[in-house]
């Protein structure tokens, strides 16, 4: 017999109304505006764009406002929104060598062409809270200096001349880039699909996995060859125009991790590479992504797969925080019938267990004697 249970409509409606009230908070405090979030919580907006896998600052800011600052909830909202829009096409691949660079550092070359540009970084700050900020102090304009306009070659191009570093990752000529928004995940997968999953993957999860490789679980001897942040132009081929049309610019963070590699049956000693590419200013995420990308190439490079970070199915299946939160959080939804069934089962098992113990007792005593 199946008995449907209804109810809770009024409770749900009132809960949502209460949520709206609590989201807004004290009405005597001015409401946040979208442009305030875009401008002043910019890195939170960037994270929502990266893991929501949708570049649109205002939408990400709206999602942060609606989710009361719960970024995973905001990412969920953005992912849901994107399913409502038609797809116009695939852009031409961005060229990070022509980036309008806002930050660029290398831990491997002090004097690389274009130099070390710190940009707006938290590095070298003392991590002391600044109570003055609460009083909205006047902030001075940034210093300016004449740039030398030097083309900033990617660091991989520098090492490539010696032949000691592997080339950018190539796939067969006829390979069509995979798209996890169109086809379900299948293992094993090509590196292009893995990178798509990692780029939208949870920053905390990838950070922990990258950290685990540094602590010895799949050690990969990494150096930051280069991190660069800045704007790149997007171009799209459309049938109605005889040229690729410029769509505008997006800000991305790119990380080239360079890894010392002692060689294997499959590849000679050289520097191998892990790659990270993420929407917005998201340096930690791009670095974690590149560590995970390199770890996941263990099979391709003939390394033993011994650590969680090297296990493709484990990493990629659990990197999406919308999927993860959906499955974990669904546990709080009503499971009354499941639980009733389990309760019944455990009761029966316990009854049988007790009965068995009782009938075993005399024999046990005998055996003990």
């Amino acid at each position, binding site marked *: 017999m199946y008995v449907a249970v209804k109810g809770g409509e009024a409770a749900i409606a009132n809960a949502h109304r209460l949520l709206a009230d609590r989201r807004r908070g004290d009405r005597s405090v001015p409401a946040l505006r979208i442009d305030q979030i875009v401008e002043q919580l910019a890195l939170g907006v960037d994270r929502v764009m990266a893991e929501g*896998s*949708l*570049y*649109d600052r*205002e939408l990400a800011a709206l999602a942060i406002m609606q989710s009361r600052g719960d970024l995973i909830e905001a990412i969920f909202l953005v992912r849901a929104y*994107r399913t409502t*829009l*038609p*797809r*116009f*096409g*695939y*852009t031409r*691949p*961005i*060229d*990070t*060598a022509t980036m309008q660079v*806002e*930050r660029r550092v290398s831990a491997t070359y002090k004097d690389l062409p274009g130099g*070390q*540009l*710190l940009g707006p970084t938290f590095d070298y700050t003392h991590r002391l809270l600044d109570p003055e900020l609460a009083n909205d102090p006047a902030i001075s304009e*940034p*210093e*300016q*200096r*004449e*740039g030398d306009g030097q083309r900033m070659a990617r660091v*991989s191009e520098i090492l490539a001349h010696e032949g000691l570093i592997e080339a*950018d*990752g*190539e*796939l067969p000529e006829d390979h069509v*880039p*995979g*798209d996890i*928004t169109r086809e379900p995940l299948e293992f094993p997968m090509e*590196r*292009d*699909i893995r*990178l*798509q999953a990692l*780029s939208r993957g949870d920053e905390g999860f990838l950070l922990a996995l990258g950290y685990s490789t540094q602590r010895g679980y799949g050690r990969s001897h990494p150096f930051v060859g280069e991190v660069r942040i800045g704007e790149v132009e*997007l171009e*799209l081929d459309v049938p*109605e*125009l*005889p*040229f690729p*049309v*410029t*769509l*505008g*610019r*997006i800000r991305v963070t790119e990380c*080239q991790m360079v890894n010392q590699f002692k060689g294997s049956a499959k590849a000679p000693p050289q520097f191998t*590479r892990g*790659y990270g*590419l993420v929407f917005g200013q998201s340096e930690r995420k791009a670095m974690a992504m590149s560590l995970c990308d390199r770890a996941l190439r263990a099979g391709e490079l003939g390394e033993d797969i011994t650590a969680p970070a090297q296990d493709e199915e484990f990493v990629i299946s659990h990197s999406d925080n919308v999927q993860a939160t959906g499955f974990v959080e669904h546990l709080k939804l009503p499971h009354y019938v499941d639980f009733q069934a389990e309760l019944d089962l455990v009761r029966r098992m316990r009854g049988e267990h007790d009965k068995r113990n009782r009938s075993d007792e005399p024999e046990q005593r005998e055996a003990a004697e």
Partner: protein
Amino acid sequence: MDRRQERELEAQRKAAMAALALAPADELKRLCSEAGISGEAEMLRGPETGLVSVRGRIGGGGAPFNFGEATVTRATVRLPSGEIGHAYALGRDKEKARLSAIADALWQNPARRAEVENKILSPLRAAQVEADATRRAETAATKVDFFTMVRGED
């Protein structure tokens, strides 16, 4: 018109459309209203918002991969004089797309091109060049100048 001239014209139109796509929406709306070109154009498509899948390359220069999506709004218009204009730009601003498509259509009319160049595109380009230069100079000020500490007598 020979093939070379045709290519040159295409490159100019591409650059004009790029300037429109890169323009801040408010600035474009202001310039269009000042130039009096918000006018009558038949909408052939949109303005409509959709997505593009954004591609990067493995290692920066290797095989392409999809790494996320972006919102894009596009529009196509026809002017009473027959020119068809297109617009594509990141974001969800439909009025920006509509105005950009009208500007593209007007640009294709040789009699109106100079007007579009002078009143719309030139100010947009100048603002963009200036914004880029400022950003570059601000970044350049954070460049590390290494110096060597000489230790000892020789």
